[in-house]
């Protein structure tokens, strides 16, 4: 008989989910959501809206790169070839590995394996730190070569590459100055990416602590899942940065 009433008034919250109100409030099912699925869907939707603003943010930087690379193509080619492909490729592999363990962490939370979740989160963090370590090494090399844009920028390797054993066409002094535009974008893009990773690592430490406390081993996986979305997004940004900054100028073609 209950069925008839519910079917006639499907929107009546009190009858539709009366049973739910006898439960203590669960973190995966707050009282203002009809079901756990609905709360989860709302959370995923909100996280993706945030990530879309991030796409627009990084998108602006990618667009600047596209435009300036066309304007100052020769300067971008030689400046880009200063970057180390082995270091960049290693970092790509490390970051993919970090994302892989983050994905496994989401799985561990879903199947409620607390020990595995903590382990995977720690591996994710360590790989993230390894990425930043290599990035630091690359930045340090640019610092030593005076390739940081600004008053102390040194164009000599671009004006007279053969004196430094670099197999590139020499640039005219005015075009050589434009290598600063490349390095500005290089530091802006990889720097913003690194900042996102630092924020992610701080969040990972907090999530690892909470996972260890057992917060995510009883069906409440939203923080792990949504952080996973963020971490994978940061991976994706790098998947584009690596070819654009490191790879596409090895054979300039035109």
């Amino acid at each position, binding site marked *: 008989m*209950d*069925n008839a009433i*519910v*079917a006639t008034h*499907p*929107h009546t919250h009190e009858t*539709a*989910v009366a*049973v739910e109100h006898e439960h203590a409030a669960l973190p995966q099912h707050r009282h203002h959501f*009809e*079901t756990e*699925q*609905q709360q*989860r*869907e709302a959370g*995923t*939707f909100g996280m*993706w*809206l945030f*990530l*879309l603003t991030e*796409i*627009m943010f990084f*998108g602006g930087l990618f*667009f600047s790169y*596209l*435009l300036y690379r066309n304007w100052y193509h020769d300067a971008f080619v030689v400046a880009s070839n200063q970057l180390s*492909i082995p270091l960049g*490729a290693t970092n*790509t*592999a490390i970051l*993919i*590995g970090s*994302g*892989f363990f*983050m*994905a*496994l962490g*989401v*799985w561990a939370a*879903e199947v409620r394996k607390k020990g595995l979740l903590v382990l995977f989160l720690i591996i994710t963090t360590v790989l993230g730190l390894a990425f930043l370590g290599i990035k630091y090494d690359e930045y340090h090399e640019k610092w030593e070569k005076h390739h940081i844009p600004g008053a102390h920028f040194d164009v000599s390797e671009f004006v007279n590459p053969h004196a430094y054993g670099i197999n590139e066409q020499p640039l005219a002094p005015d075009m050589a100055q434009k290598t600063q535009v490349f390095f500005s974008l290089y530091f802006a893009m990889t720097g913003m990416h690194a900042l996102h990773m630092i924020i992610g690592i701080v969040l990972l430490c907090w999530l690892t602590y909470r996972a260890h406390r057992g917060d995510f081993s009883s069906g409440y996986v939203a923080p792990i*899942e949504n952080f*996973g*979305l963020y971490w*994978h*997004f940061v*991976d*994706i940004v790098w*998947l*584009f940065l*690596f*070819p*654009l900054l*490191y*790879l*596409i100028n*090895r*054979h300039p*073609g*035109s």
Partner: protein
Amino acid sequence: MSEYHDAANVVNPEHADHHIVTPLTYCIVFGTLLVFTGITVGAAFIDLGIFNPVVALAIACFKAVIVILFFMHVKYQSKLVKMTVGAGFFTFLVLVTMTLTDYMSRAWGLW
């Protein structure tokens, strides 16, 4: 689903059952991403003319798509989430195209 009587289907109209992606799937995706990283590095050392950037970007897009579909679970999400993701990338492409047409047309014929 079945624990609720929800004849009018207001609670979960898409029947989006929660899907747990298995570690095996993640392993396959991980392997694919590493292989394509190797391919993109190798392709950078082959002279393809203007297709070097095209190939590099195509591989990057492919990698991004499988990360989005599997690591980020979009393949298993509701239509709402799929539309949201698609709309975001579409809007980004519109913005890039419109800004590019502006820059390209400013110096029309002067290059």
